[in-house]
C-alpha cells in the first residue's frame, strides 16, 4: 500500500534499488549461512574439546577469545622420537567454509622435520590439502600432525636438509639435529 503513494518515477527507482538489494541479500545469505554453519560447528568442537581435555593429555586446543576462527594448540612431541619432551605450538586459521574446506595449520615453534617448512612452519600433509574430509575435526588434525612427527615422509620434503638426511640413511644425523632444535625451541628454558 505504501508503494501506491510513490510517484511513477520514484516507484521505478524504488524497484531498481529493491532488486539490487535482493541480489545482495541472496549472496549474503549464502555466505552468512556457511559462516553460521561453520561457527556452529566450531562451537560444538570447542565444547567437545573442553570435555576431552582430560582424555587426551598430548593435545591442548584453545580458541582465541575474540575470534572463533583462530585457534592454537599445544602438542607434545611423541615419545621415542627426537621431538620427545618438546611442546610445540600450532596455529590454526579456519576458513569460513569450514568444515568443507580444511583449516590452515602451521607450527609456531621451530621444528626440524622434513615435512615442515623450517622458516614459516607450513606443514605438508595430505589431509590438509586434497585428502581433506569434512569429517575431520581440529582435534583429529592435531592427532594427524603428531603422527606425522613420528612418521616423517622424506619423499615430499618442505625442509630439504632434513629430508636429505633421512633419504641418505643418516638417521643419526637427522635425530641429533631434530633433537637439538627440540631442545632449543620446544623445551622450557631451565632457570
Amino acid at each position, binding site marked *: 500500500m505504501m508503494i501506491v503513494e510513490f510517484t511513477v518515477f520514484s516507484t521505478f527507482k524504488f524497484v531498481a534499488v529493491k532488486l539490487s538489494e535482493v541480489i545482495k541479500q541472496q549472496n549474503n545469505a*549464502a555466505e552468512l549461512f*556457511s559462516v553460521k*554453519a561453520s561457527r*556452529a*560447528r566450531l562451537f*560444538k*568442537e570447542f565444547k*567437545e574439546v573442553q570435555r576431552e581435555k582430560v582424555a587426551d593429555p598430548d593435545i591442548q586446543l584453545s580458541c582465541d577469545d575474540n575470534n572463533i576462527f583462530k585457534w592454537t594448540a599445544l602438542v607434545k612431541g611423541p615419545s621415542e622420537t627426537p621431538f620427545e619432551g618438546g611442546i610445540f605450538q600450532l596455529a590454526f586459521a579456519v576458513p569460513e*567454509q569450514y*568444515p*568443507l*574446506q580444511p583449516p590452515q595449520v602451521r607450527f609456531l615453534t621451530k621444528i626440524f622435520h622434513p615435512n615442515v617448512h623450517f622458516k614459516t612452519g607450513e606443514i605438508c600433509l595430505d589431509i590438509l590439502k586434497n585428502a581433506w*574430509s*569434512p*569429517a*575431520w575435526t581440529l582435534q583429529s588434525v592435531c592427532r594427524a600432525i603428531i603422527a606425522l612427527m613420528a612418521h616423517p615422509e622424506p619423499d615430499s620434503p618442505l625442509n630439504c636438509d632434513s629430508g636429505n638426511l633421512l633419504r641418505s640413511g643418516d638417521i643419526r644425523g637427522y635425530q641429533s639435529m631434530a633433537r637439538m632444535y627440540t631442545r632449543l625451541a620446544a623445551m622450557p628454558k631451565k632457570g
Partner: protein
Amino acid sequence: MEEYFSSDDECCYSDRDSLDGLENEDSRTHWAPSKGPASKVITKESLLAAQREDLRRVMELLSVREHHARTLLIHHRWDVEKLFAVLVEKGKSVLFMEAGVSLADQQNLGVPLPPTVMCEICIEDVLGGDATRMDCGHCFCNECWTGHFVVKINEGQSKRIKCMAHKCNAICDEAVVRNLVSKTHPDLAEKFDRFLLESYIEDNKRVNWCPSTPHCGNAIRNEDDDFCEVECSCGLQFCFSCLSEAHSPCSCLMWELWVKKCRDESETVNWITVHTKHCPKCHKPVEKNGGCNLVSCICGQAFCWLCGGATGRDHTWSSIAGHSCGRYKDDGEKKAERAKRDLFRYMHYHNRYKAHTDSFKLESKLKETIQEKVSVLEDRDSKLRDFGWVNNGLYRLFRSRRVLSYSYPFAFYMFGDELFKDEMTNKERDIKQHLFEDQQQQLEENVEKLSKFLEAPFDQYEEEKVMNVRMQVLNLSTITDKLCQKMYECIENDLLGSLQLGIHNIAPYRSKGIEKASELSVCWGNNSDKALHCGSSGRTTESDQPSGSGSSEESGISSRKRARMEGPGGAFFDLNLPADNVDRSEL
C-alpha cells in the same frame, strides 16, 4: 554452394559414363568408401545420446545403474574395452573399488533412516528426512552435503565428488548431487551436469573438440582409425590426431616441425620468396594472380612459377615435357656451406609448398568464374546438357593441389637429415627420393594440365571443342585422382612403412576429399536434459533404439543439405540451432 554439392552427385554419374571408355575402371572399387562416414559430429544436443551406447554396454554387462556406469567409464577414460579387461583381470570388486563405485549393501539400503540422525559434519541432530545416505552407507545431513557439493563443483571436481567421510573413496550419486544442489544453486547444478556430460569429450581418446575459433560447440567422434582427417559440420577440416589443419601426406610430427620452421624464418625472406618471383628476362618482381604455374611477365616472357626458369618452346600450354623443376638438385659438388645449402633446400620446398597453397587460395575465385562459364554454356542450346564434369574437374583440381602442396613439406623431412638420418643409407634415400619425386612430378604435370583446361575460356568454344575439353578434364580428373592415390600408397608402404624407429602415420587418401562427419542421430535429443534428470529408471528401454545406421544416415543427409544451404560465407555459423529444428521436424 548448394549447386556445388548437388553437382557432386551428378558428377558421379557423368564420371561413371566416361569411365566406360577408360581403362581404369577398377580403380573406383577399391578406394571408394563403402560405408558411411566413420566420424560423427556431436553437438550439445546429441552429447548424451553419444554416450548412451557406451553406458548401455557397461550397464548391461555389470548390471549397474547408469550413474555407476558413468563413474566407471569416467575412471577408465571412456575406454570400454579397457574397462572390460580390468573386469576380467582383477574382478568386479576391484574394478568397482578402484573407480569409487560402492554397490550398496542390500541390508543397509533396505533399512530406513532412523527418525533423527546425528550428522558428523555439523554435529547436529537432524530429522531423518533431512539427511541422505549415499550408496557407500555414509549418512550426513542435506545441508552439509549441499555445502560439500558446492565447494567441489566450484573447485572443478564435478567428475569425482567423493563422499565426505574420512577415507571413503566412493563417488557420490550424481542424482543426489543434482537434486540437492539445484535446490539452492540451480546454476551450479547446471554446471555439474555439463561437466559430467563433457567428460565424454574431455577424457575420451576417441572424441575431440572441433578446434574452430570461435568455437562451434561441436565435438567429433572418430569410430575407425586414429589417423584420419575430418570435417566438422561447421565446415572446418582438421587432422583428428593433432587438431591442426588437415595436412596429409605429412605426418603430424612433420607438420608440427614445418609450421614451426615456417614461422621462424624471417618475415622479409618469407615475403620476398613467397609473394614474388623475378622475371628471368626483365628481373622485375612478378606476383602471381591466377591458379596455373605457367606465368607470363608483363614483358611477355613466360616462366615457370615454381622454379622461376624461363620457359619457351619446351614449356608451353599444351606440353610441359621435360619440366622437372620439382626435383631437388643437391649441389654437393660445389661443397657450398652447409647452412647455406640447408636454407636453399628449405626455400626450395617452401616455395613449392607455398606456390600450391597460394593457387589453392585462389580457388574460390576460380569457382566463380567457372560457374559463370557454365551458366553461359547452359544458356546455349546444345546437346551437351550435363556440366557436372566441370565441377568434378574443379574439385579434383583443388583436392590434388592440396595433396601436392603438403607433399613438399613431407619430402623436406622425409629426405632431410632432421628426422630419418639414421634410418636410411644415402643410397636408399636416393632411391626413395627418386621414386617419390617421379610420382610427385607426374602428379604435378597432370594437375597443371587440368588447371589449364579448366581455366580455358571454353564457354566461347565451338561445341565440338567443348566436348574435347570435357573429355580432357574427365580424363585428367581420373588420372590425378589415381596418381594421388598412388602417391599416398607409396608414402604409406614404401617410405614411412619401412622405417624402423620413427612413428609416423598419415591419414589415408580419400579421393572424395576429407570426410564430412555425419551428425549423430538424436532420437529424443531435445529432452536429453530431462532424461538425465529423471535418473536411470526406464533408460535402458530407450537406449535399445539403434544409434547408428538408418536414422543417422537420414540426419546426416539433412545436416549436409542444411550446411550447404547456409551459403559460402558462413564458415562459422552455429549449427546447433538449426540442428535442433531439423531433428524436431524429423520426430
